[in-house]
């Protein structure tokens, strides 16, 4: 392996826009890693390619009532409800901690309207230590009766291009798996000016409490993540790789290096580890070590050599 054999670059496509350069392709997935503090006790955060912080909203959000977590077969359904301190407090209280590390910081933003996305993008662009924006379009559009943005390709393009105008940071649009044709949604994100797409967000799911004869979650539906969804995530990464030319950040059930390699072969330039962290607090670095082992075994100079290689 070359020095820098793990470095991956997501080029800023638009004029004057920044690149996102990661020392390695392993990213802690948004919402599963807090703002890094907790896992900093278990791993050296400098070892990560990037941290995608907990989904941010313009103002603080309290989140949903408990239970927020339901375990299913090799998966979990979560209904956290975007509990977060809001943009300002994030910048004030969490950024100083994250800035101690070399690891790139990806701000994951969730809005209920185009205006909210634009406002957050502008505000975060003023913060020099944020390296990219991850636009989470899996939120309900309050102006459209709660329809989720991510399921409407036009809205995805609209939000992306609005954010594009509001920031010179690299934009990663995070796609929802709950659509008929993820390739066409990815295309719209690309058309809107996204520098990359990340997928998959959680799969809409539910569980029923047969004793109480009602949904386990008060909000009825939650998002399924973990190994159970890996085969679905891989398929969608594959589809998106055939639809767009921008880089893909792949995720969904990655627990070890071999899982990550599957995503990379399917077309992911980088990978995120989410639920895996809960099971194994050193999951991110274990995934990285596994990737390195695979590269060594296969005499690879650079991780790029694997990206999309299974498409033949």
């Amino acid at each position: 392996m070359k020095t820098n054999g793990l470095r991956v670059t997501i080029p800023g496509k638009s004029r004057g826009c920044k690149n996102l350069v990661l020392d390695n392709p392993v990213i802690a997935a948004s919402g599963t890693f807090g703002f890094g503090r907790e896992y900093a006790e278990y791993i050296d955060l400098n070892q990560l390619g990037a941290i995608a912080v907990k989904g941010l909203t313009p103002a603080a959000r309290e989140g949903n009532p408990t239970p927020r977590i339901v375990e299913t077969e090799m998966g979990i359904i979560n209904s956290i409800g975007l509990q977060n301190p809001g943009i300002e407090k994030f910048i004030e209280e969490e950024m100083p901690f994250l800035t101690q590390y070399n690891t790139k910081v990806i701000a994951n933003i969730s809005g209920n309207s185009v205006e909210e996305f634009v406002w957050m993008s502008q505000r975060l662009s003023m913060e020099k230590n944020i390296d990219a924006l991850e636009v989470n379009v899996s939120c309900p559009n309050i102006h459209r009766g709660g329809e989720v943005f991510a399921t409407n390709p036009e809205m995805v393009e609209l939000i992306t291009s609005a954010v594009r105008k509001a920031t010179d940071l690299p934009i990663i649009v995070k796609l929802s798996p709950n659509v008929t044709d993820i390739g066409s949604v990815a295309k719209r994100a690309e058309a809107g000016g996204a520098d990359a797409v990340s997928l998959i967000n959680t799969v809409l799911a539910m569980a029923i409490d047969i004793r109480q004869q009602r949904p386990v979650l008060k909000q009825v539906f939650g998002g399924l993540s973990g190994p159970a969804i890996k085969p679905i995530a891989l398929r969608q990464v594959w589809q998106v790789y055939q639809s767009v030319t921008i880089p893909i950040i792949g995720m969904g059930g990655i627990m070890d290096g071999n899982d990550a390699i599957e995503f990379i072969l399917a077309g992911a330039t980088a990978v995120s580890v989410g639920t895996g962290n809960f099971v194994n607090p050193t999951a991110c670095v274990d995934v990285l070590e596994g990737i390195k082992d695979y590269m060594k075994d296969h005499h690879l100079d650079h991780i790029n050599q694997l990206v999309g290689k299974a498409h033949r």
Partner: protein
Amino acid sequence: MKKEFIGEILYQEMMYDGCYRMVIKTDEDLLKASQPGQFVHLKINQTGSPLLRRPFSIHRIDLEQKTISLLYAVVGKGTRIMAMDLPGKKVGIIGPLGTGFPLPDPKPYHVALIGGGLGAAPLLFTAERLVEKEIKTTVILGYADKQRSMLEGDFKRLGVRTYISTEDGSIGNRGYPTEVLQEMILSEKIDAVFTCGPEIMMHKVAVICGDAGVKAWVSLEEKMACGVGACLGCVVRIRDEGGSHYEKACKEGPVFKASEVIFHEN
């Protein structure tokens, strides 16, 4: 850096049908760091299902034997597997986690421990540490019935004054442990109460102690994913000046000041 410890199940003791004490040999670092009221997050099968870890209070630490004991009831998938686990099996442990009971320093001090059912689990370790500190300790244990009562001998062996109540009176007082506490709190000086058990019981303890002006701490349970404060899965509602906010049972808790907890309506 913190890390996962590997434990090996030495043996299991059946307390009653469906309740077991698992004794696990593990790393000294884990044992030495453990404080009463803290918990460990256990990966029952090192690979595969169940996916998530399971939180269990630290029931006992034996530094000589290098063991940690957990006391658990079979309630679902994970604990069902645990009950079938054979000696020699390896488990993955992260911990100690969370914030435990605030062990007092001054000696002329009387702590009452109130346990309901499995809630007794962390109280044995707590009692041990209180006794080590020569703090006067009383334990009041409540169980459904004689068949499901346990740990009396363990507490007595520590020299702790031990009361048992059962709902059907088949052993000890008939009734709830809160009734014993209620009487005691009026008749003798209690400086602090630590409680763990069904939420309804802990709520009652909170009320009794609140009325009597006695400080109390409760150990709460919430479904946990990460166990370390990252996922925000395990929040509990905590009173504050402005009203209330969420805190994490796995990090700020599981032990909270009883007066600050907003209990679920049940």
